[in-house]
């Protein structure tokens, strides 16, 4: 084990050029980033983008092929035993014992770290108190939202300094999802560093900073607001009664930079950078009218998802929207 790291490093995680391959698949392709102490940091990307591989490396469960990562100042390879005492990890798949009760699962995880539920109660109370009425229920018989709270309690019972949550909200309904993010905000307010992954863009706004990941690399890393603002071009919402017909017509419009469905509306950018937004909107409206399509074109604020689409299109032109 190497020398004791600084007591309160400004960066909770420093990753430099992480590479991980599985056979011919490159899961991580030279990933570098820092997470500041006390941050709620999100990795946002699709299934297969490399999020789980990254989390396993940071949680000392997988050794990178190249590159280094330090978590709380400890090297994830050479200092793994010291580091394991200080991290909490909640894997994406429910990894508790289905045949043990709620209380037995928690007691087991406490005992692994040489502690007890009673001693750590204050730390886990905000979450565990919601489960206590069901503490004798088998874990397998819990609802999705409750399983998730039990898994979080088990990841927190040894009072870690940093928490890794791999897709904690996948498959959970919108109400439980919101409650879960409220819990994370509460834990963060207590000083815990939290790193979370999700495929859902709308969860980005709950994070202090996010990294957009794709094919083992980072497309953007910043605050959610800054990533959205980095879109950098006028964006328009097109609202019409025939959404599909309008989409097809805009694809044939010579000035189209990009167009894609976005919820109830279509998002459109004009390929001509110099055209004033009001003019671009009016021109598109009259073009659509000439095709027999009634649609309203209005400027709209880009979201983080718009930026993600733009960066993906630039990185993978064959996929362009």
């Amino acid at each position, binding site marked *: 084990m190497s020398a004791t790291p600084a007591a309160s490093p400004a960066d909770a995680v420093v990753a430099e050029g992480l590479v991980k391959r599985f056979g011919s698949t490159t899961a991580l392709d030279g990933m570098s980033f820092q997470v500041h102490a006390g941050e709620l940091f999100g990795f946002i*990307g*699709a*299934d*297969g*983008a490399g999020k789980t591989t990254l989390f396993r490396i940071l949680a000392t469960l997988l050794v990178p092929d190249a590159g280094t990562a330090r978590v709380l100042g400890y090297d994830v390879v050479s200092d793994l035993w010291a580091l394991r005492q200080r991290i909490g990890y909640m894997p994406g798949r429910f990894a508790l014992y289905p045949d043990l009760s709620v209380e037995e699962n928690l007691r087991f995880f406490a005992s692994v770290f040489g502690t007890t539920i009673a001693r750590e109660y204050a730390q886990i109370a*905000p*979450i565990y*108190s*919601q489960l206590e*009425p069901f503490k004798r229920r088998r874990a397998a018989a819990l*609802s*999705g*939202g409750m399983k998730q709270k039990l898994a979080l309690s088990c990841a927190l019972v040894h009072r870690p300094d940093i928490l890794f949550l791999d897709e904690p909200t*996948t*498959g*959970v*309904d*919108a*109400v*439980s*999802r*919101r409650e879960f993010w*409220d*819990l994370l*905000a*509460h834990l963060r*307010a207590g000083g815990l560093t939290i790193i979370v992954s999700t*495929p*859902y*863009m*709308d969860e980005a706004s709950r994070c202090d900073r996010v990294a957009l990941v*794709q094919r083992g690399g980072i497309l953007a890393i910043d605050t959610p607001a800054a990533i959205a603002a980095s879109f950098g071009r006028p964006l328009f919402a097109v609202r019409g009664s025939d*959404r*599909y*017909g309008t*989409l097809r017509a805009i694809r044939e419009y010579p000035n189209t930079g990009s167009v*894609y*469905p976005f*919820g*109830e509306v279509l998002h459109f950018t004009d390929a001509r950078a110099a055209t004033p937004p009001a003019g671009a909107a009016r021109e598109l409206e009259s073009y659509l009218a000439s095709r027999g399509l009634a649609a309203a074109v209005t400027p709209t604020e880009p979201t983080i*998802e718009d930026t*993600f*689409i733009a960066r*993906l*299109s630039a990185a*993978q032109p064959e*996929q*362009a*929207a």
Partner: protein
Amino acid sequence: MNESLAIRARELTRTFGAFTAVDHITFDVRAGEVFGFLGANGAGKTTAIRMLTGLLAPSGGEAVVAGHDIRTESEAVKRDIGYMSQRFSLYDDLTVRENIQLYGGIYDLPPAEIRARMRRMLDRLGLQRSESALVRSLPLGWKQKLAFSVALLHEPRIVFLDEPTGGVDPITRRQFWELIYEAAHAGTTVFVTTHYMDEAEYCDRISIMVAGRIGALGTPHELKAQFGAASLDDVFVRLARPERAAGAAGAPGEPLAPRGATP
């Protein structure tokens, strides 16, 4: 039978013992509509879908799906609908062609017809060269597009989709929605269930089930206006947890009053 309606449910009800899972729901889905069917876990969504797909007999009320009475013609209902769940629609260990043949066989399509439809489908998806590839070797986005097309192979009038765009990148997701819009444009009704409100935003109309009943029904725009909410997520949470939206922190069973949770 009204041909412009894909689903017509009237007072549809299902009880299990003393528990009423679906409580007199009434709604219509128009042909060619993309309809989102939402609800929190335990709200009765799954029970309702099992009835609408002919898998579970109702305790009361009636429904006509794809022109067939779900009570007396459940086999005909099953034949005229398609179904795709996010993860389990295709067999990973079979090739693209084998999956299509299997599926076509289940629906009794003649082999020549299966071949013709397969050719058209693979051309449209740009997957001609992957015909002999194992499904497991395809990227997730391709698998989803293929699963959707396979669910349409027997030309059902309604296709049921369960969280169709979960876990894919934002571009793949949009390509998938375009496939859905294209199918709807061609007259297929698309019935989407999802936990994700940003996915629900892509539907023409949505309904939100609460405690066995339909708590709200309308276009995403109408529902946001009706509830004075900025997002469908807010609409959903208000419906599912009214005490929470009203700011009643510390309600029984919910002792935590998280920071920043003010209404």
